[in-house]
């Protein structure tokens, strides 16, 4: 009879949207009805922003790998787009001053390469990175878009100027007077760097939100503590990558005298940029929250390994440039230049991975966890229940007595942004051999036992459901983990 007095449906005279109707019709538990009722009232008041969107289920890899793939390619190209602009105008100026047709010819050829790479892959992957993030974590992107809307809009103007200037600069070779052509080149470089200036503030905000949580000021958000050191570091990366890409074109020159000159010239750009990066990097590291620094320097083995990989690959790139193109410019083959580019790509990928990973457990520091839940909503969701607060994952009434189905929904809402079931960062593998008590303890103290993870948010019943679901995964036996024995009390103590 409880359904007849259920307060879950909106009254007939309800003005209507915006509201969410929860698909619950027959609940045999008064407490749950109260929870739903309160959740419904809250959602109708439009107060909560957590659990807003459906969650895209990407089997095996999870959405994170997609973001990483697009982001690394884009960062590798976009920094070249900026440094490459500076490289071109300075190289052109060098050729003009020396009245050297060979140098100018090289710069012209390199312009074709730059425009092809940045316009085809740079611009499209730039859109693609936001495309991907919005699919994997729409709540976080929504927050960044709404907070930084004017910063994005300003960046778009610079981006537009950058693209038009790149096209005109390329078109203008042999057609424009050199003075105008140089001016166009400077406009290209200037707008590209200003575009970085705008975006950089948003990127660092996600890690060092500064005074924004207190002031809620956009200026404080953009001018956050990490903004300036990161800008210097990224500018140095732009210079280094300009040299890396230029090695690919200069190593193909057939005039050996010109090749020697341009290969060595390009190598100097790599060395100059790479020399500045560690200093700016240390400055940037000094602005990081303690937790982030801890994660990168031994706190989490995987993050530490990527930090080491980043340093190692960068070191190899510098050594390879010094002992290759710098010392033997005439012998430098395009294959070797591509190997150096691959090292640079690896270093870029590892560094970006570390930058993303040290943000854990947040996606926007101190504002939103990596699973899109906000610390500010923690208390409310814990009392109301995760699924009762959810707009998309309220289990059907028939599933309310099935803890495994509840647990599956809890996993999807709270864990699937980082973990897959049995693919990359598999939860099945991570919890292999754990018994019920150990699982429950780990989940209960998630953020204290595993610093890179957000706290578990939900009711005791939901935590129990999650435990039951994870145990059921082990029982499925689809993998070697099922054969492992349950871990002992001693293991539990070690895990602490």
């Amino acid at each position, binding site marked *: 009879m409880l359904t007849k007095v259920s307060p879950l449906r909106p009254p007939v005279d309800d003005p209507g*949207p*915006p509201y*969410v*109707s929860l*698909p619950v019709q027959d609940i045999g538990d008064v407490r749950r009805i109260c929870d739903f009722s309160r959740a419904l009232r809250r*959602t109708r008041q*439009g107060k*909560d*922003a957590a659990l*807003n*969107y*459906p*969650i*895209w*289920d990407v089997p095996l890899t999870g959405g994170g790998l997609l973001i990483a793939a*697009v982001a690394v390619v884009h960062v590798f190209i976009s920094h070249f787009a900026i440094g490459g602009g500076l490289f071109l105008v300075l190289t052109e100026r060098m*050729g*003009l001053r020396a*009245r050297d047709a060979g140098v100018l010819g090289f710069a012209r050829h390199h312009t074709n390469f730059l425009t*092809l790479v940045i*316009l*085809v*892959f740079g*611009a*499209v*992957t730039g*859109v693609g990175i936001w495309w991907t993030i*919005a*699919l994997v974590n*729409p709540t976080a992107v*929504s*927050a960044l*878009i*709404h*907070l930084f*809307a*004017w*910063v*994005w*809009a300003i960046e*778009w*103007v*610079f*981006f537009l*100027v950058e*693209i*038009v200037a790149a*096209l*005109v600069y390329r078109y*203008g070779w042999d*057609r*424009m*007077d*050199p003075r*105008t*052509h140089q001016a166009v080149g400077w*406009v290209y470089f200037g*707008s590209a760097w200003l575009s970085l200036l705008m975006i950089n503030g948003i990127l660092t905000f996600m890690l060092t939100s500064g005074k924004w949580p207190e002031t809620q000021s*956009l200026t404080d958000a953009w001018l956050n503590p990490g903004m300036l050191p990161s800008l210097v570091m990224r500018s140095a990366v732009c210079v280094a990558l300009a040299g890396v890409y230029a090695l690919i074109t200069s190593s193909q020159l057939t005039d050996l005298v010109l090749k020697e000159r341009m290969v060595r010239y390009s190598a100097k750009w790599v060395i100059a940029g790479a020399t500045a990066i560690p200093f700016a990097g240390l400055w940037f590291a000094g602005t990081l929250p303690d937790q982030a620094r801890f994660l990168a320097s031994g706190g989490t083995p995987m993050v530490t390994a990527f930090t080491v990989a980043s340093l190692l690959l960068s070191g190899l790139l510098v050594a390879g440039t010094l002992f290759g193109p710098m010392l033997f410019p005439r012998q430098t083959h395009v294959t070797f230049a591509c190997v150096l580019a691959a090292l640079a790509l690896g270093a870029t990928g590892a560094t970006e991975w570390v930058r993303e990973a040290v943000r854990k457990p947040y996606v926007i520091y101190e504002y939103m966890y990596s699973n899109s839940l906000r610390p500010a909503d923690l208390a409310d969701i814990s009392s109301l229940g995760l699924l009762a607060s959810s707009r*998309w994952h309220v289990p059907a009434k028939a599933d309310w007595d099935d803890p495994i189905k509840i647990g599956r929904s809890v996993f999807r809402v709270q864990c699937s942004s980082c973990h897959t079931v049995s693919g990359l960062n598999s939860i099945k593998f991570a919890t292999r051999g754990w018994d019920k008590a150990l699982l429950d303890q780990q989940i209960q103290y998630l953020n204290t036992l595993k610093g890179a993870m957000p706290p578990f948010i939900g009711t005791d019943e939901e935590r129990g459901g999650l435990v039951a679901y994870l145990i059921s995964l082990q029982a499925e036996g689809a993998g070697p983990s099922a054969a492992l024995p349950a871990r002992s009390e001693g293991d539990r103590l070690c895990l602490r």
Partner: protein
Amino acid sequence: MPTVIPPVDPLGLPAAASLLKALSLLTFTLHLLAINVTVGGLLMLLVYGRRPQGDSGALFASRMRALLPASMAITITLGVAPLLFLQVLYGQAFYTSSVLMAWSWLLIIPALCVAYLGLYLAYLRPSWLGDRGQALAWLSAVLTLLVAAVFANNMTLMLEPGLWAPIYAASAYGTALNLGDPMLPARYLHTVLAAPAVAGLACCLMGLRFRSLDADWAAWAHRTGMHWFHVGAGLLMVSGVWYLLALPPRIGRQFMGASAHDTGVLALGIVLGLAALAVAKRATWLATVLTGLGVGCMVMARHRVREYMLAPHVNAAGIPVHADNGWAAAFAVTLVLGVAAVVWLVRCALRCRGSREGATSG
């Protein structure tokens, strides 16, 4: 199944919804014009790309091959701003529909990369490619039309909040499309058919640009472009009637008299289009301006359809505003300077005819 609507973002809007809508409409109109030149130009390239050497069509194809990579770059760049304002104003609907059709939405990125690369290669390496150049143009055209189809799917799915929860309940793998929507084919066709019409005008303008250099070819370009413009505009009007009738009746009625404002916007768009057709032969630049304004009216009508369809659930005007006037002013200043820079750059490109050989000869 109940309708599930994400709540508004607690950070609110950065300015009044009306200002953001105006910026959205303006930038989307520019984006749409660029799309039409790119897609229509690509279709014209398919028609004239195989003409024998010395034929005016072959020369047009060669010039279009040079133009398309640039117009594709401009199209993508101009698309960023309306996408930004769409997210600010209607993120609740846009993010949801995007997630529901995540894979096809994501595949736009590699499809665009390949289409764009094809255009570049067809331009940079015509002799190396030979006949394969035309195959590449076909590939780019097919991919571009597919991208447009995926966009049409998302832009219509985001208008159907009632479908979201059932789609998500059926599958969370992001494999949905909105193919069951009766509005979709009419809307897609109407959008795509604008391309040959606007590209025809662009062809006429190319003729004007080369009038003093190559009078015969200029006359051919003007004549051919005018033909594409007239045929495209005719088809566009037929598809427009279909689109109007395919709208949900309560919304279609708004454009047929129930709302003076909406009917006026649509009528003005049609009148501007007809006026452009009437003056095109004698005053191509005026026809271009009229066409641009007509497209702007149609963009406004499209926006009204979106508002009507989302109105019961999502209302941008109801989102709290946390305005930051200093940053809004900074954007305005940047925009003015940016437009000035673009105008200067384009003038530089249009003026340069000489060679720089003199600079290196001494």
